[in-house]
Structure formats: C-alpha cells, structure tokens
C-alpha cells in the first residue's frame, strides 16, 4: 500500500509513529507546538501527544539543545527542531562539547540519544545567515552522526532510524525539499543510517552527492544518458561517518568520480570524501577526482548571484563530460 506525501508530511509521520511507539520520544524547540513548526513538520502533534511531549521552549538555541541533552541523559529521547539549522551555530557548544563528547568523557556511562533536525542548505533568497551548510562545520565533531535525507521516502525511514539510534544525530532536511511529493509505503519501514544509497547504477563514472544536489544531479544525468553515457549516482545519506565501502565499490567499477555538493569548497563534505577515496582507492582511479561545490563566499541575497554561487545541472553535465574525455 502506498500513499503520496510531501516530504514534510513524511517527516511528521516518522515522528508521529515514533512518539506512538515509544513514550520516551518527545519534540522540543521554538514554535513546534501550537504553531506546528516553521515547515509544518510537527503540525497537530501537540493535539495528539499534549504540550508536555511537544514542547515549545523560549528562544535560546544553546540552552534548549542543552536541555535536550540533560533529558536524554535522564531517560528521554528528545527530537530537537532547529527552526533553521543555520541558527544552531548558536548551539555549537552544546552540540560539540556536550552532545558529541559526554558519552566518551563519561566512559560510556551516559548515552545521548538525541536527534537535532531542521531545514538546512541554500533556499530561495534567504541570504547568508539562513543558508549555512552546517554539516561542514559539524563534521569534525567526534561522537556525532550526520545524516542528510533527499526524498520523502528516505526522509521518513531515516528519521525513524535516527530517533531509535543511541547516539546524537544531526538530521539535515533541505529547505527546498519540504514540498517534494512521492509515493511511499503506508507500512512501517526503517532505513539504515550509515549506508550510502546507489540511486542509479551505471558503469562510466561515479557521481557522489547528497540532499538537494541529488535532484540537480538527476537532471544532469537525464542529459548525460541522452548523450549515450551511463553514470552511477550515489546519495551519501550518511555524511558522518561516510560509507566508504559503497564509494570504493563503485569507483572500483567506474574508475572515475565526481562529487557534487552544496557546501562551500573549502572544508566541505567533498573535501573529506575526496581524501578518503584517494587514501583507499587511489589505484582504482583513471583520472583525478573532480568536485563541484558552492563558491567560498557567504551566500548572496540577490537571486542571480545566489544561483551563480550554487552548482547548476548544466555545470554538472559539462564537468562529467570533461572528466569522461580524460
């Protein structure tokens, strides 16, 4: 049985099912209760579970994240909503020094089963402070898992897995994907958090991407296929830790790789993926790995500049063709 849902509905269904399944799961953040969350992900959950389990807090990102950590250490499974993940930089200390490390500094005596989720990425003219790609900043924090969903189907299955996980998980939803619609199973399903997904099998080149850029890549792939090429597409899903096995298997088959990301180039996810493939599959490569990233500038507000800052499908087509000709 299938039903067609927007991504925000798929996410809501995931939280709803997990709250019904486990009384310890609760949602907290700004405007998650009566307002239903800025992107409707928690809409109406408060009527079903009450204000105590769908908790509106005062605005202080570092402190509501800290509160969630304390609750997690005392038996609950909090799901924190960041109204915009960019603002969670205000919670950097609680996420990095505490959520990421308390399991370690306590010698494994306290677990922090915590999900921090919300909209990230570059939206439509939201400017620099609303367009941070926080995965780049947080990937260095030990103890954190970072997961990025890209479709309603994986959004639901991954969020459920993240809530069940016993570690702190930073769960990235893309601000421009909430209204993406897809038919997904009505029956319960959970997806593995740590596995990359081969979205399209191919043989000529491996295109590695995640989150919204998957959709840019798939547009480019249509053109590449029309021109007789057969690329393999991998959705990373897990940005930390990276599923190296799937990447190496693919590169061993295609011998060429290109990474497409929304991160800024310096210190982005692609930088890490490149380094890992070079370290573990250098002999399999027939050409240097290419990466297409956003420009190293704060995301500009002006729509033309903003689009120019981002990787576009035509640039992906061009880069893949160049790589194939080497």
């Amino acid at each position, binding site marked *: 049985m299938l039903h067609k849902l927007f991504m925000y509905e798929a996410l809501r269904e995931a939280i709803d099912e997990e709250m019904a399944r486990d009384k310890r799961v609760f949602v907290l953040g700004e405007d998650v209760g009566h307002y239903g969350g800025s992107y409707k992900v928690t809409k109406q959950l*408060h009527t079903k579970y009450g204000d105590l389990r769908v908790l509106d807090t005062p605005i202080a990102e*570092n402190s509501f994240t800290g509160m969630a950590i304390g609750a997690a250490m005392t038996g609950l499974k*909090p799901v924190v909503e960041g109204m915009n993940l960019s603002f969670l930089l205000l919670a950097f200390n609680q996420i990095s020094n505490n959520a990421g490390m308390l399991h370690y500094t*306590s010698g494994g005596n306290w677990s922090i089963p915590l999900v921090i989720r919300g909209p990230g990425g570059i939206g439509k003219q939201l400017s620099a402070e609303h367009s941070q790609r926080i995965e780049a900043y947080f990937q260095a924090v030990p103890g954190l*898992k970072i997961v990025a969903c890209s479709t309603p189907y994986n959004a639901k299955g991954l969020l459920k897995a993240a809530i069940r996980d016993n570690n702190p998980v930073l769960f990235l939803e893309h601000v421009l994907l909430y209204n993406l619609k897809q038919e997904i199973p009505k029956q319960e399903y959970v997806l593995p958090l740590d596995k990359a997904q081969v979205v399209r099998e191919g043989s000529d080149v491996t295109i590695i991407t995640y989150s919204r850029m998957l959709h840019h890549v798939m547009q480019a792939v249509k053109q590449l296929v029309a021109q007789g090429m057969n690329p393999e597409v991998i959705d990373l899903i897990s940005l930390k830790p990276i599923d190296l096995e799937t990447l190496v298997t693919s590169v061993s088959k295609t011998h060429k790789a290109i990474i497409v990301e929304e991160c800024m180039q310096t210190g982005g996810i692609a930088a890490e993926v490149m380094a890992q493939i070079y370290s573990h599959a250098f002999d399999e490569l027939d050409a240097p790995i290419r990466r297409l990233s956003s420009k190293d500038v704060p995301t500009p507000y002006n729509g033309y500049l903003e689009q120019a800052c981002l990787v576009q499908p035509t640039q992906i087509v061009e880069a893949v063709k160049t790589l194939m000709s080497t």
Partner: protein
Amino acid sequence: MYHSKSYLKNVRVLLTRAVQDSVRIAYRAAFRAQVEKHHGRRIGNAYQQGCSGSYAAVGQQARCCSSGTERPVSWFSPGGEVHFPGAVAAPYTHKLVVEEAAKLLPIPAFRLLNNNGELVDGVDSKSVEEKVSGAVLRKIYDCMVALNVMDSILFSAQRQGRISFYLTSFCEEAAVVASAAALDNHDEVFAQYREQGVLLWRGYTYDDFCQQCCSTRKEPARGHQMPVHYGRKDMHFHTISSTLATQIPHAVGAAYALKLDGKGIAACYFGEGAASEGDFHAAMNFASTLDCPVLFICRNNGYAISTPATEQFRGDGIARRACGYGMDAIRCDGNDALAVYVATNYARDRIVATSRPMLLELLTYRGGHHSTSDDSSQYRSLEEIDYFMRYADPIARLGRFLNVSPAEEQAMRKRERTLVLDALSSAEQEEKEPPLDMFLDVYSSMPPHLIRQRESLRLSLERIEQAKANRASTSPK
C-alpha cells in the same frame, strides 16, 4: 464618592494581585491537567500552594484548558482595561516610575549558627532537632573534615607532580556537603567542578577519587576525562564538562524528564562566576517557564578565578535574579552547615510539592586557589584569606556546635590522611587504559572509520615496538 488615596492604592494592589493570581492559577491548572493526563492519574493540589487562598474565587473564573492543548486566555477582559500580554498584571499610573535597583534592600542570608558555633538569637535547640538529627549533623561534620583532608593531600600531590590538576573546596565544605546531605541520594546532580563533597557524601571512596585523578583504567571514564571531572551514574552524579555553565540547561532537561516520570528533582551546582554565562540565564528562564523541578545551588564564593564579585555583577548577588525569572529564591550563609542543610531541605520539599524550580544562593568564600593552575596571591591578599579562614571556617563552626574536641578532630584528620595517602599510592600503581581502547565509547558501537584508524594505530605501535626491540638487540653490549 470620595476615596482616600491609600484606599485607592489598596484597591489597585488587590486587583493587581487578583489578576496575577488568576493567570498563575490558570496556568497551573492547565499544567496539572497535562501532567495528570500524561500519568493517567491525579496528582493532588500541590500546584495551588503557591496561590494565595483569598483570591481563589477570582482564579476559578479564569478559563483553563481541560484538554491540555488549549492555552488559558485570561488577559482578555472585554469592556474592561486593556492589559498587554507581556505583563498582564501591570497596573497603569500617571507617574513616570523608575524602578530603582539601588533601592531594593539586600536579601537577608538565612543563618542558624554564629561564627562561634552557637545558635543565633531566636532559635532554640528543640526546633533545630526537629529539622535535623544530631547524628546527621555529625555525619556532615565528618564528611567535611574528610573532604578537607583529601583536598589538602591531592592539592599537594599536584604540586609534587603526582597528578596533573586539582581543585579544592577549602572554606566551602559546608556549602557542598550540607546541601548534598539534604538532597535525596537519587536526585540527579549536575555539578560544576568544585563539588567533590557531593560525591564523598554519596559514598564515592578515596580510592575512587584517586583512581580518577590518576586517570587509571579503574575509574568510570578510564582516563577519558581530566582530573576532578568526576561522573558516576549509580550515584546520579553527571560527568562534569569543563565548559562553564553547560550543566545548567542539562539539569533543566533532566528535571523535565523526572517530572514526566513523576519522581525526584535535579540539583544543579554552579558558582557565581558561571552565572554570567548565557546558559545560566536561559536555563533559569526555561526552568521557570516550563515548570521544571530543579534546585539551582549557587556557590557564591566571591571570585571567578581572579575576577572578584564586585567586577562580575552590580545587582544583589545571584538570588535576586531568580525573581526576575518568576522563581523563588533563598539566600543562605553557606558556611553555616546547619542553615545550609535546613534551607536545602526546605527548598527540596517545596520543589517536590510545587514542581517549580528554586534558586538557593550560598554565600561563601573560596579559601583555595581557583585551581592548581592559579596563584591567587596575584590578585588577593593573604590577610583577606586569613580573615575568612579565621572567622568563617565552616568546619570549626560546626565542630564547636557539636562539641568536637580539638584532640578528636586531630585524631580524625590523622586517620583520614593515612587512608587518602594509601589510596593515592595504590592509584599511582594502577594501569592506564591501553592506547587502542581510546576508540571505545566515541559512539555506542564502533563505526568503520574508527575501526580503520584503530588498526592503523595498532600497526604503527607494533612497528615502533619492533624498532625498539631491534635497536636493543643490535646495540653494543
């Protein structure tokens, strides 16, 4: 009809209180309905204890939510005066009122014993015995002495290079031990770093302390965390973080979890220095707005490392701030163990009954350096330290009250000293965690990238060992 000014003022005050109470009652009723819904049972009338009875009739008229999802809207009064949602109880006045901070009288500090260890005027021994038994007080005293002895030895051990770091509780023994004694041993404690007395009270042994300070494999975190950053799950004492004040929102979250479970409270220790952090302010506000059963215990010891209290804040200490968050507070002489015990006990009972947070400010003095990385003679005089140690020593004060003779105290110190030294020697002999185990506990199970890094380190260490062995075998005899 003519009314005198004072009559009108009284009416205004009464109306203001009625509005305040109706809002408070409505919120509490709504909150209670939700907790009851959550637990599927009634939880009594404790939540109304904070409301004054004479205005109850007004409160009952306020709309409150029965479903637990509708918020009370009691500031609408059609046809009446408009009250803005940000301060519904504010009366109107044609006078330009400046609320002068300097005119607020300092909050008095609760004290039962004077510096000579005698009950202060107006307190009789019978009323004290009703609140705390002599046996408990003696146990508190013994624990304070033990803490003082252990601190002296471990401080010296750091100076001798036997451990890398230490923090003492000198002159703050009563604040920490007597408050711990008044808590339930199952209350979740979130501490800053100068609260080893809580652990000592809860049964953490000298062995435990020394193993942690020597970062051996026998301590709970197996040397993953620096000395004095203790944590012990079965004692409900959460692992300490170095970043200041981060434990305060943790305590609020833990209290929230305890509230949903309907058991116990969280207790959160911090210094007045940490109360400058943003996390302190936000956590206080969270606890108050979200009705979390948490006791904030501020050790106001006068110094944030080198910065004296006079340069940290301009208000009346920390207790006054609680009122700004709509939270009740108690200020207490933190070097009077008896007063600390009674105040903590009272605050705890009240938190359990009301599910409202409280702040307990313990006025004390940091007798030692901030830590072994500090030299406080750079910023305060020896005379100052001597003054407090002479006139505000919490151990001497309680000892006099309990009639402990100097000979008895000395014998006790000698005995404890031997025990601590033995524990330290044995901890120094204990093995450390082997390097390859550093990868444990980063995650609940080890992910592939850490398995790869561990294997790489294993090979590297093997090569180093092999090279050493080669050098040894080829070196001239």
